[in-house]
């Protein structure tokens, strides 16, 4: 999307390149942030499968939160069988 542009320079009718949704860093909607405690994580991938924003990524042999898109819904923390995920307040 055309952030910071004047209305005169924006795309007529908001027609933009495909995949423009990636430019929306929806992470800033978050009020709570999931923090993974790797000492408890057993790599079951339940959080990865259930995150509605696909914001849990597999990096090497562990899971990681992509904070650019994680909206802080807390589903991962709720579903984690070992309670390895903690929701912490976002600093404003």
């Amino acid at each position, binding site marked *: *999307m*055309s*952030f910071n542009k004047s*209305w005169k320079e924006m795309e007529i009718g*908001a*027609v933009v*390149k495909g995949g423009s949704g990636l430019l929306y860093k929806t992470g800033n909607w978050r009020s709570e942030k999931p923090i993974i405690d790797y000492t408890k994580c057993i790599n079951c991938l339940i959080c990865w499968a259930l995150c509605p924003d696909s914001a849990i990524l597999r990096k090497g042999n562990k899971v990681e939160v992509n904070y650019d898109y994680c909206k802080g819904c807390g589903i991962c923390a709720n579903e984690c069988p070992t309670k390895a995920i903690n929701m912490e307040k976002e600093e404003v």
Partner: protein
Amino acid sequence: MTTVAATKKFIEATGNLAVAYAVKQVNVDFISAYPITPQTIIVEALSQYVADGELKAKFVNVESEHSALSACIGASIAGARVFTATSSQGLVLMYEELPVASGLRLPIVMALSMRALSAPINIHNDHSDFMSMREQGWIMLAAEDAQEVYDLTIMAFKIAEDERVLLPTVAAMDGFTISHTLQRVDVLDDEVVRKFVGERKARFKLDVENPLTFGPLALTDSYFEFKRQQHEAFKNSEKVIREVFKEYEKISGRKYEPLKKFMMEDAEVAIVALGSTVGIARIAAKKLREEGIKAGVIGFTLFRPTPKVEINETLKDVRTLAVFERHLSLGAVAGPHYMDIISSLDKKDDVKIYDYVYGLGGRDITTKMIVDTVKKTIEKAKKNEPMEVEFVGVRE
């Protein structure tokens, strides 16, 4: 002397058939609509043209008006010249898609055979469907008779598709009164119309290798800017509409202006109307003049964008107005014409304008009713009475 290349060719047509004929001549690529009284004959005639091979367009039958306008939106995105038609409840079923068509800046042309909104059910004419479109970002034109709706339909494509505009456009006529009344309609030759409207220039190429997003999310950071852009498109359209009217006059010999003026040169009181009532108002003005009252008529051909410049010009010397609204803005102080005129006037302290609601659900308006209302208006103006909407022709 005019340099008109006008042909003497004419057809006998109702308003609906005149629209269908115009749509055939502009050579649309795509039509989708759902039948609804009193518009049905437009799409019936068009489907016949397509079936007979007279019009090489894709005619898509759908299960509702919501789908009809949705299909039109898709086709317009793909670059097609697109037409639809509707009335009343059909229009309000399209409602969700009306601002989508304008927000995406798609030059779809719609014919509206104006009809009262339910409930209770009524199939006859008033302007409540048309007026409900005011906030949805469509250019709005209104015809007085079948000739005008033929002409305006052709011009609507040229206005809507102009790159300075790119806004959907509705050309409306009074349901039944015009849509079903047979009249002589002077028509242009196909080639003349085609040359006038030209080809639609597609803005995009739909290509899977280079995908585009239509109708993306635009939240707090960008929505406002897109709306500001649409507002500008309306401003630009004023100029384009005047140009198109002038250009059309050259090929047809028929003069169009945002506001029609009749006996306004020396008028002391003006009757304001839209649609077929403008014709009745002309007769009323003549009658009033026979009685020594210098009346004139202002008819709205262009409703959106509001013809502010013309309103100021036309009302320079006439400060007493009887405004006839075939629409009731429920809960509002006055009707749309009243509000548009008042908000357009740069100088309004001395203007005496009175609002009258008439003809709802197709109730007839007569010359006498207009004459009497104008006389009443003059009395009210003399006494400097405050404006309160009055009803003409309702049983008290």
